[in-house]
């Protein structure tokens, strides 16, 4: 795959894996309304994944569409960031992941909406409205849980503490990102970091929480070096196409 196809693939993989993760909450959320809320976010992510993976397949030009890319690749071929594949844990840990990711995604899509490539711009312009709501929703929950009861606060702190080490990867610029940026297609992710920090700090202050202690960042998702969790996720998500290759209905 060339740089632009890989760029679309990464965007699609982020949304796909997060959507699948959130889908695991279906029927298990703390309240019926929260169940629907998480499922809505999951479906928005799956929709974005469909668009970006189809685009990746189109740019690649090897006859693969979004479904093929989603269901017929193995772990090391996935290019999602490590943050989105992290396990749901408890509700606070899920919210911590959503909080860090949605604010990144909102800034990212807002930047991509100005892409020179109309295909990237169109997907991002539609998706930015969706993820703006996700970011608000996640921030609200961070404040509620952080500034809530002793137990909710402890869980929110633990959730953020776990997810924090995967935040740096979101803003990493490698050769693919540099090529996409140089072509006027991609965003300067490193430049989004300042705005992201501000948003995160603002919500954390509202939640009366301190920033988690800095840790050694964990990187590697973009080049296929994933945690053990992703394989388990894929074995569930891809079961049908692995058991019955090419099945349609």
């Amino acid at each position, binding site marked *: 795959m060339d740089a632009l196809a890989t760029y679309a693939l990464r965007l699609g993989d982020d949304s796909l894996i997060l959507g699948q993760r959130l889908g695991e909450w279906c029927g298990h959320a703390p309240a019926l*309304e929260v169940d629907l809320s998480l499922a*809505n976010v999951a479906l928005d992510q799956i929709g974005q994944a469909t668009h970006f993976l189809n685009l990746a397949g189109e740019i690649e030009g090897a006859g693969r569409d979004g479904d093929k890319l989603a269901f017929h690749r193995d772990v090391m071929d996935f290019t999602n960031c490590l943050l989105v594949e992290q396990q749901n844990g408890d509700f606070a840990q899920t919210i911590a992941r959503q909080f860090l990711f949605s604010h990144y995604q909102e800034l990212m899509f807002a930047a991509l909406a100005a892409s020179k490539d109309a295909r990237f711009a169109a997907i991002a312009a539609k998706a930015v409205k969706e993820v703006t709501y996700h970011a608000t929703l996640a921030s609200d929950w961070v404040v509620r849980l952080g500034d809530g009861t002793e137990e909710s606060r402890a869980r929110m702190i633990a959730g953020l503490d776990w997810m924090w080490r995967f935040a740096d990867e979101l803003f990493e610029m490698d050769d693919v990102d540099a090529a996409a940026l140089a072509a006027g297609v991609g965003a300067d992710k490193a430049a989004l970091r300042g705005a992201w920090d501000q948003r995160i700090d603002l919500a954390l202050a509202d939640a009366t929480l301190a920033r988690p202690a800095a840790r050694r960042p964990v990187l590697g998702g973009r080049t296929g070096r994933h945690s053990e969790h992703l394989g388990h996720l894929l074995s569930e998500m891809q079961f049908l196409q692995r058991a019955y290759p090419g099945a349609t209905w």
Partner: protein
Amino acid sequence: MSDASKEWPLWEVFVRGKGGLSHRHVGSVHAADAKMAVEHARDTYTRRMEGVSLWVLPSAQITSSDPGDAAALFEPAEDKVYRHPTFYKIPDGITHI
């Protein structure tokens, strides 16, 4: 779920289908406060483009008529057909009525 006192309070949800229409009652949600109620109402009742505006209000704030009074409240209206404006002859050529 067993301890009702630990449940979030109930909110009634009203959705405006489109500009110019009034908000209509569509159901209810549980939520800890008004802000959460709006989010839950959005996620529960506007997933299929049902609306352009939401109202939520605490269910506890609604005062309803007593079903036991229904006979006295509503049945007297049954034989007051003259309250319906159906006895006027409308001249030909009148529109917008």
